[in-house]
């Protein structure tokens, strides 16, 4: 690997591991301290490596430095505890005998346990995603701000509040017990799913950053699958869904960074390796008695890996959406179901159904109606697309709809 790339690469891979191990050793209330030590460790690397050369085993070097810094911190805490604390009665201290366990197993376990801690139901979901990006994915504050289309101050405040919450609730860094596992895993999967969507649908222009978000959420999901207790059908279904979606990354943007819609994508650009992986995890998800929404969405995503339209394809997608809507309603699922209905049974029936959806403040609703009418009533299609433009909330959406509108006006 290139010298220039080494530190960023190590940072991405090792920062989160160091934080997780330190947090596990110190307790969640010292999460900021863990972040500081991990940060200082990389700072030391940046300062010394250019002069003394890159150590033979850079990873081991980082862990050794982090270990030293942690030890110094513990000694300082110990002095504080013995000499100063008795007078001022501070909060909890770190046990000075804490020894850092840097075994492969502890590094993996610590990361998984941190994942459960960060996705604790007591933490607001938005903060969970921020914390996950910072602590579990090693993202910088600026990157997180970019991904959320906001500024560093907002993210810093959000993370600060989340850390406070972790402290107040005294959330332990451990695997939940058997009875609790299901509910807690549900929260973890929700966060990973949102993290993926944040990357997939983000408005951020930085496509590398957005793909990174998706890949990170996939990495964390895979971490769960590699661990026996959490290698459950719905976790496999979630990863399958992510693989199928991610397979379209290379085809989703044109040279100018504009979104290319599914119908217009060059399917030869779809990543066949990821599609294969998606199918693999989909097969592994077909166990147990419960069908989760991830199972249904993964199956829908599977049908979308077949570009050619067929009645079978759309009939299956329609049925899957019917099931998905029973399990958990969302306006997007209702709109997609209606689109599948049009593809399976024709636009007339779909229009009748669409008019009952009552999503009149949603621009996608009018995009759908425009699409349904475009085949046989151009005038109505144009009216609906225009309404959609007026309701669209982002420039990207407006541009996409305007393109549809233009193609109609030209053809007329």
């Amino acid at each position, binding site marked *: 690997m290139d010298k220039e790339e080494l530190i960023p690469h190590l940072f991405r891979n090792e920062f989160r591991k160091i934080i997780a191990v330190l947090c596990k050793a110190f307790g969640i209330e010292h999460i900021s301290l863990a972040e500081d030590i991990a940060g200082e460790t990389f700072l030391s690397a940046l300062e010394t490596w250019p002069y003394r050369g890159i150590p033979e085993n850079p990873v081991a070097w980082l862990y050794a430095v982090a270990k030293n810094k942690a030890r110094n911190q513990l000694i300082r805490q110990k002095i504080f505890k013995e000499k100063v604390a008795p007078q001022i009665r501070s909060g909890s201290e770190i046990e000075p005998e804490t020894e850092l366990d840097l075994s492969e197993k502890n590094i993996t376990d610590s990361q998984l346990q941190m994942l459960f801690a960060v996705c604790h139901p007591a933490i607001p979901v938005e903060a969970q995603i921020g914390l996950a990006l910072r602590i579990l994915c090693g993202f910088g504050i600026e990157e997180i701000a970019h991904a959320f289309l906001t500024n560093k101050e907002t993210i810093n405040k959000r993370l600060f509040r989340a850390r406070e919450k972790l402290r107040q609730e005294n959330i332990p860094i451990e695997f939940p017990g058997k009875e609790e596992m299901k509910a807690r895993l549900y929260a973890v999967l929700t966060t990973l799913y949102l993290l993926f969507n944040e990357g997939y649908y983000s408005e951020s222009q930085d496509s590398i950053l957005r793909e990174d978000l998706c890949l990170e959420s996939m990495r964390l999901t895979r971490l769960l699958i590699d661990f026996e207790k959490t290698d459950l059908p719905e976790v496999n279904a979630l990863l399958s869904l992510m693989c199928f979606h991610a397979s379209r990354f290379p085809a989703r943007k044109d040279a100018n960074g504009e979104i290319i819609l599914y119908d217009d994508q060059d399917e030869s650009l779809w990543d066949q390796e990821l599609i294969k992986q998606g199918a693999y995890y989909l097969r592994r998800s077909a166990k147990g008695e419960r069908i989760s929404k991830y199972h249904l969405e993964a199956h829908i995503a599977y049908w979308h890996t077949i570009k050619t339209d067929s009645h079978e394809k759309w009939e299956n997608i329609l049925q899957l*959406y*019917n*099931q998905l809507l029973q399990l958990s309603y969302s306006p997007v699922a*209702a709109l997609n*179901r209606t689109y599948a209905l049009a593809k399976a049974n024709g636009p007339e029936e779909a229009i009748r*159904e669409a008019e009952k959806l009552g999503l009149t403040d949603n621009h996608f609703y009018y995009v759908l109606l425009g699409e349904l009418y475009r085949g046989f009533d151009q005038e109505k299609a144009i009216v609906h697309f225009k309404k959609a433009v007026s309701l669209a909330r982002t420039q990207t959406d407006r541009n996409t709809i305007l393109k549809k509108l233009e193609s109609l006006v030209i053809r007329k």
Partner: protein
Amino acid sequence: MDEYALIMRHEDGLKVASPEQLQEWMQQTREWIGRISAQNKFVSGTGLPFADAKVVHSDHTVTNGPFGDIKETIGGFIIVQADSVEEAVEFAKGSPVLQGQGNSMEVRKVSKRN
């Protein structure tokens, strides 16, 4: 918004349908529920298979049934949300159960739990 139970009443629970026929009804039922779910009005529901059905009488005797004594059998129900009983009735009209001669749908308001 109130909740209504839409109860599927079959004229004759002993009538045996072919597997293909059953398959088609299942499919139509899924579509019917899908239409209601797409409007975010579906709450819950279940089928009530006729196999192993029993009736427990007031003297605690148990009979197979409820066939024989009463002809009509409940095949399942779904609970929907609706602004009015008229809207619930509209949902009920979409049920594939009504394709069977003599079958009916009963619409009942669910009492509010406080």
